[in-house]
């Protein structure tokens, strides 16, 4: 036995994403954002996408391209942070935005990856974040039902991958990536380095390749990956 090889080409793997797909996108600010996969998705132009991401990147990079192209029907996000374009699109009604508390978004995605139906939490209870949510009583306490979030596709950025899809992340580029890498029917990884099987020690693997469908090596890091001088 040997572990299966999932390494493939950028174009093909993005071409498998249909219009209307729900797409998890890794990253918290710049670190961990799969810019290479996103740029190809912007180039291919799939439409009616529902994106799930911590933030909307900054203007001129990452999912901002998709928003500006009109490829995004809805964005599920914890904050729009530094992206004035996204805020303007939301305010004009061109972009539907659903806000989620940051840790609850992480847990909803993780619950999807763990094959659970939902989590029960009191986060946001008695605030407007609770509006419209199912409430369950548990030992006399009201808890919000936060449904698991699974997607058609996850776009993941890793520092190192092997051909089976075992992944390691760098520093705070980890963030949502390992959670999202568990929570989609088709998990697509871009890696800064593709090492042979055995190149990642079993204890150093942060996402087992059993969750991963496709691995693409980034040929050259584009400038978005660099330091942002604000």
């Amino acid at each position, binding site marked *: *036995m040997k*572990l299966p090889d999932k390494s493939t080409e950028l174009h093909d793997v993005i071409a498998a994403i249909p219009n209307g797909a729900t797409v998890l996108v890794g990253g918290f600010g710049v670190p961990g954002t799969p810019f290479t996969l996103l740029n190809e998705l912007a180039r291919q132009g799939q439409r009616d996408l529902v994106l799930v991401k911590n933030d909307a990147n900054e203007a001129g990079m990452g999912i901002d391209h998709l928003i500006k192209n009109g490829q995004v029907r809805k964005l599920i996000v914890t904050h729009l942070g530094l992206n004035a374009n996204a805020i303007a699109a939301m305010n004009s009604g061109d972009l539907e935005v659903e806000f989620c508390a940051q840790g609850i978004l992480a847990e909803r995605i993780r619950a999807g*990856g763990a094959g659970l139906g939902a989590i029960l939490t009191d986060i946001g209870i008695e605030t407007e974040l609770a509006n419209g949510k199912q409430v369950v009583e548990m030992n006399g306490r009201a808890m919000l039902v936060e449904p698991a979030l699974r997607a058609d596709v996850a776009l993941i950025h890793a520092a190192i991958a092997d051909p089976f899809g075992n992944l390691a992340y760098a520093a705070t580029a980890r963030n949502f990536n390992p959670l999202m890498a*568990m929570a989609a029917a088709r998990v697509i990884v871009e890696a800064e380095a593709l090492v042979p099987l055995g190149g990642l020690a079993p204890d150093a693997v942060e996402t*087992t*390749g*059993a969750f991963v469908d496709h691995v693409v090596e980034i040929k050259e890091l584009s400038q978005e990956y660099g330091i942002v001088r604000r």
Partner: protein
Amino acid sequence: MSDARSRMVARAAQEIAPGMVVNLGIGLPTQVVNHLPADFPVCLHSENGLTGIGAMLPYDEADRNLIDAGGAYVSTIPGSAFFDSAVSFALVRSGRLDLTLLGAFEVARNGDLANWKIPGKFSPGAGGAIELAQKARRVVVMTTHCDRKGNPKLLDACTLPLTARGRVARIYTDMAVVDVTPNGFALRELATGVSVAELRAATGASITIPQSDIPTF
């Protein structure tokens, strides 16, 4: 191992398609790996937190921290990964486990499985069996056709507490390969030397027999 059991194991190994993630139950299922080619692309999963299970090791070569879910000392292969128990069952429940091969006390004609408890006699707890049986994409049973007393294990309905309802797709036994269909059990193959009459006598439910020639294994 009897000749019929060996052939059952070899036949069941054909369940494993290239690229699958597979969990093999303790006992007979573990042995199907001996029938796969050295370069066969497959990922074996162990509930205690390992993908990429390598060969079992003798005690004097074992790593004290590296066991499979049955407690056997195993090794890694290039690309193995360790993870915690929550991630291990996340993989099972979220649909990433393509196949599990499990043992059984009883299988019913609707695919119900009982393999963890005999009230009053055997109740050590289910471990990970419930999740494997309920959530693997394909659940296949490997078992002797009858128990040690000669009583059939393939039944109209299970009498023991269930592990999961309606999840068994196929059963490999020392007598036959049997599918669970919407119409109940259906014979697919017979072990060499077993007659249809013998099979019917050893099966606790009706079983559909093909009109055409019945392949043997």
